[in-house]
């Protein structure tokens, strides 16, 4: 752990010293940014991408935002809620960070939620849990990625209207993320005339999906709401059973991430997924970012790399609007939420809960220059977490779950 003597003194001397320091002296101090990510364990693939992209973002700006040096302190939560909590405390109390980025997983975000409220630390979130920007909004959070269902809503409409599927099956991880994403998909798909005839959830650590695959009923298509490597393993086994000819797979935002695509073969070709990003996006920021990331790491940036890169851009824009004065937390927080900027995912702004409003892309796996990529085939502009619903009505409903909205069209 790198720690300068000044940080040490600052930390031990406490608030009195901090308050006594004059304004110019404080402005010279670096901005301390804490990144909560996962560098060990099963989630490390995405976690390492988060760190790589953010490091790249800062390096491109000579580690300087709004004229102040930025000191990045990376903490490894190992994907465990308890460790996430300890590391957050360490970043806040020992490293005295000005703001946090991350964590990766929803259960980590929930584990640190009350601590963030208590300590009032501005957080640029990555994890997708719905309610932290809905029914239990955290005033210290902005989320530049999306809520669990934010990309699934447009996918529901796309499947019903553009792909004209009548009946579908959903399958996802048996965790809040899987429940929320498939629920959002189901709601929009069914409201557009489709029918969900079967809903399956598999334990996050299910070693084998054979049992689930053998149960699949007849339908036009199946929506895959898995995270991490699970979507990849499910698809392989799905093909193993020779089902791709009978049932068309489509995916949520983490089903066929760029990180997974590079280990897949022709079986992935043609699969349609939804996400707020694709390495193939044709905007000026991404035209710089994606090739640079590829040059450095030999693979395309995906969901997690883009996540911290987007959050970096949000941080930069917010700091600029307040002249780098990150110490004034309420002003900084207000600036974050008022941010409107162009990022690698396209233009972003935030709603009153701090959740992003931005484009959602429907992508299709194609082969380009020998590698598999997610080509964008349709853009839903400025999608909010509430989709086209009235915000009040949306919030009056219970949060998306296994059982809400109820599935009325299940076949027996």
């Amino acid at each position, binding site marked *: 752990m790198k720690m300068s003597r000044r940080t040490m003194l600052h930390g031990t001397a406490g608030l009195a010293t901090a308050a006594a320091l004059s304004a110019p002296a404080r402005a010279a101090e670096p901005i301390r940014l804490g990144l909560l990510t996962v560098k060990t*364990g099963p989630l*490390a693939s995405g976690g390492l991408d988060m760190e790589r992209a953010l490091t790249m973002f800062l390096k491109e700006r000579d580690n300087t935002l709004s004229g102040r040096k930025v000191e990045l302190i990376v903490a490894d939560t190992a994907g465990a809620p308890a460790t996430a909590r300890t590391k957050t405390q360490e970043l806040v109390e020992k490293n005295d960070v000005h703001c946090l980025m991350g964590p990766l997983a929803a259960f980590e975000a929930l584990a640190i939620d009350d601590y963030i409220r208590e300590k009032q630390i501005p957080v640029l979130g990555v994890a997708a849990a719905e309610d932290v920007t809905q029914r239990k909004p955290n005033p210290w959070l902005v989320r530049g990625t999306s809520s669990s269902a934010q990309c699934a809503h447009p996918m529901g409409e796309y499947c019903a209207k553009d792909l004209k599927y009548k009946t579908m099956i959903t399958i996802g991880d048996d965790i809040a993320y899987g429940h929320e994403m498939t629920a959002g998909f189901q709601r929009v798909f069914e409201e557009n005339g489709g029918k969900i005839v079967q809903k399956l959830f598999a334990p996050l650590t299910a070693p084998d999906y054979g*049992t689930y695959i*053998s*149960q699949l009923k007849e339908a036009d298509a199946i929506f895959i709401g898995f995270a991490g490597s699970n979507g990849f393993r499910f698809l*392989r086994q799905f093909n*193993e059973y020779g089902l791709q000819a009978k049932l068309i797979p489509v995916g949520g935002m983490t089903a066929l991430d760029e990180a997974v695509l590079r280990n897949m073969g022709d079986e992935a070709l043609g699969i349609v997924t939804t996400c707020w990003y694709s390495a193939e996006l044709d905007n000026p920021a991404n035209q710089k970012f994606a090739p640079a990331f590829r040059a450095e790491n030999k693979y395309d940036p995906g969901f997690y790399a883009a996540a911290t890169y987007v959050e970096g851009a949000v941080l930069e824009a917010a700091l600029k609007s307040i002249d780098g004065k990150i110490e004034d937390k309420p002003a900084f927080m207000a600036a974050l939420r008022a941010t409107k900027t162009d990022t690698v995912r396209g233009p972003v702004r935030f709603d009153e809960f701090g959740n992003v409003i931005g484009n959602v892309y429907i992508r299709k796996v194609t082969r380009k220059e020998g590698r598999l990529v997610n080509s964008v085939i349709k853009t839903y502009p400025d999608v909010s977490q509430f989709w086209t619903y009235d915000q009040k009505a949306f919030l009056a409903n219970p949060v998306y779950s296994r059982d809400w909205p109820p599935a009325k069209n299940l076949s027996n």
Partner: protein
Amino acid sequence: MQFWVAQTLNSLAFGGLLFLLSSGFSLIFGLMRLANLTHGALFMLGAYIGAYLMRAFPGTSLWMAALASGIAVAVFGGLLERFVLRRLAGNALGQVLLTLGIAFIISDGCLLVFGGDPIPLSTPRWLARPVFLWGFIFPAYRLAVVVLAVCAALGLHILLDRTRLGAMIRAGVDDMAMARAVGIPVSAIFTLVFCLGSAIAGAGGVLAGPILSAYPGLDGDMLPLALIVVILGGVGSITGAFVGSFIIGAIYTFGIALLPDLAYVILFLPMILVIAIRPNGLFGRMAV
């Protein structure tokens, strides 16, 4: 009808996979009284080595990769036993903790070397297509896994019951002090059995690869399954591991299909029952 046939085949395939995983664990546990918690990690290490070989040397078949990986993991296991575990001989708790620590080291080592993304192992081409059985589809490779498991069980059975080496191993399992007294080199046999158990884990990891892929967390997903099988089947018994694997395969498959809400506990219920009624497992023969 189709449901029952399809899920029965699924349960057999999963059972076969479990046997490849747990037979080595049972062997080591039986002889050395050591719950080798690196076993899941060795399984994962095997899968990664296999995946690496098949990538680095195109044309390597899955079988070659399994063989090479089995040997590599066996050597690793042998070194581990000789130079690390041996130092804690007699300290069972210390050994268990040590194996757990080494399991963490292996799993983060794999992450460092092979990265965090899942790496698939390709199925041999002639087994890559689904077969049609009585009018429905089942992946050919999964049937092959059942055959492989049966072959492995037969091989182990012959080794343990029909050879001199097997007799020595069994003697060591039954009464270590007496085996030593009649001149059986128990300590060399320890190393050998550890190598053999590791080899089965390593090769098993590769053979399970086309179904499971090599991914970080594979170790943690598999270790509890090995424990459950061995507790159910009885420690140190290949028959026990074999029967246990297929029972667990069936309970898991039918449990999930019929009672999806119990997916998390379904595997542990039979274990509790067996521990309550037959603490040594169905085929356990430890006379402790």
